């Protein structure tokens, strides 16, 4: 059984890795065949920690595949580093394809993903995208391995609004991720009959959270939804922790993209943060797990359908349960967990079973019913 070496039980639930072989059908692939896969991840820049988690998951899967004699090929990763510069992604993506990589794992920000999609379409390449994003996209050239709002924001606010009540404050990085997640959040909050006290953005990498803190101090919201990314987020959360320690103002902070990989950097400032995602509590978190599941799933599907198979055929091939992808939307079917950082680690507060993805929020639950239904935290 190829790729069965799994350690994290919690990951198995979201990205199960599962059983099932690489397949006995080798479709004439020679044992020596090496298949190029691209890694398009920023190893420096303001969100390098997130990229590093994805990279480590992808490389772990490459090692597992290459160590497993049941696979009729070896994966040969080729990397490009856009260093957090959004304009570098599209040309480096084209370079990876010219190096023979038809499947690329990468991109952390939606900004960079949107940059590479025209290149993928032009060159017929596929991006396996391992990070949570804001939804409202279903490219035929992208496989969305992590959660969209139906599996992060919606369950998160459904859990939080009855507990933290009527008044929220929204932060975000100044691009499509923050804008759209907060736009949906505003809709849900208002539908539940509650209020958005403020909404403020920082450019990627900007660490000046002063204005946000002043507004939060002045308005005293019941909760903050934090959609800042990387360094901006660390600065903001450190300032929120100081607000708690120095002024006794403990405001719950919610996140749709916080995972284990950022906890060491955040240190004590992570205490009490509440996040939604497909898995918590084991290993280096769901970004690492998603990247691992993506590469493992791709390799297993290639082993059955053939490495040159078009994406639709690959997605129709079995992968031993590593990663369930909805063929209509190319999004993963994932569970949704809500967890809180307690004593430096996530503790799961609520778990919704895996559900088909709904990237356009066409089937989301109404939040009007959440009105006036208070729940003890």
């Amino acid at each position: 059984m190829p790729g069965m070496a799994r350690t994290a039980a919690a990951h198995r639930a979201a990205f199960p890795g599962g059983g099932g072989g690489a397949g006995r059908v080798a479709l004439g692939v020679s044992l020596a065949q090496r298949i190029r896969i691209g890694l398009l991840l920023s190893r420096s820049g303001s969100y390098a920690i997130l990229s590093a988690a994805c990279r480590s998951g992808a490389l772990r899967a490459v090692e597992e595949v290459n160590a497993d004699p049941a696979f009729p090929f070896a994966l040969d990763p080729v990397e490009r580093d856009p260093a957090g510069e959004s304009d570098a992604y599209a040309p480096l993506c084209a370079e990876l394809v010219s190096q023979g990589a038809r499947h690329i794992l990468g991109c952390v920000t939606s900004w960079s993903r949107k940059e590479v999609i025209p290149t993928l379409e032009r060159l017929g390449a596929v991006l396996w995208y391992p990070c949570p994003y804001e939804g409202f996209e279903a490219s035929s050239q992208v496989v969305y391995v992590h959660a969209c709002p139906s599996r992060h924001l919606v369950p998160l606010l459904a859990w939080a609004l009855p507990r933290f009540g009527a008044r929220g404050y929204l932060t975000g990085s100044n691009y499509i991720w923050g804008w759209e997640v907060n736009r949906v959040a505003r809709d849900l909050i208002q539908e539940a009959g509650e209020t958005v006290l403020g909404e403020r953005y920082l450019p990627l990498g900007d660490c000046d959270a002063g204005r946000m803190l002043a507004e939060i101090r002045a308005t005293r919201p019941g909760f903050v939804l934090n959609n800042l990314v990387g360094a901006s987020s660390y600065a903001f959360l450190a300032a929120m922790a100081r607000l708690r320690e120095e002024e006794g103002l403990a405001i719950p902070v919610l996140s749709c993209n916080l995972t284990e990989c950022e906890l060491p950097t955040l240190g004590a400032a992570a205490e009490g943060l509440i996040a939604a995602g497909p898995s918590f509590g084991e290993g280096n978190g769901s970004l690492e797990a998603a990247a691992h599941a993506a590469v493992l799933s791709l390799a297993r599907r290639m082993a059955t359908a053939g490495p040159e198979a078009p994406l639709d055929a690959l997605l129709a091939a079995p992968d031993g349960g590593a990663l369930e992808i909805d063929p209509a939307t190319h999004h993963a079917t994932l569970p949704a967990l809500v967890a809180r950082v307690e004593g430096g680690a996530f503790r799961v507060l609520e778990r919704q079973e895996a559900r088909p993805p709904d990237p356009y929020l066409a089937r989301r639950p109404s939040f009007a019913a959440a009105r006036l239904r208070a729940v003890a935290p």
Partner: protein
Amino acid sequence: MRSLRTPSLGGARAVILHRPHPTVEALTRQLAAIGLQAEAHWPDLGPTALAADFVFFDVDRGHDAQFPWPPGAAPMPMVALIGSEAPGRIEWALSMGADAQMLKPVGDGGVHAALLIAHAAFAARRALAAEIDGLRARLAGRRTVVRAVALLAAGSDEEAAYAELRRRAMEWRVTIEEAAARLVAQGGPLVRRRPA
């Protein structure tokens, strides 16, 4: 800024009026990914089209007789599928009441934006049409109002007569135009109370 009320698209029905073609497949794929049910019709819209929430229609080979409603009177938002950008074809698409458009060949995107824009444009068009109907009715009643004020003004001043007309409209719970029409029909201000 006008806020966009996101329509509920889950389970909504879209009808595509286009001959069998990869464009139909691309549209159907995008619509399914968003969560709509899609069906293709050709050479004309069948009876089920009347129950659709959105209609996508081919502009290149389209003509009036394909639709079960008169040009410009579609009861749902319409999205034009434009291949040829010849002015004559665009003019026809507009005459059919296109609320949004997509250029062919349809690829991997554009349907969600077209749905939202068509929905918003259709709602705005409907609201405007209702407002214009109301204003037209009031405009048409203006001559009657003048005549009613003249009737009421016999012996007093015009301002008092207009105030009296307003008072009666409120009492009768009708518009000023309607009250004026009643007074003119009665031939004068003799009846001061609504008939029991």
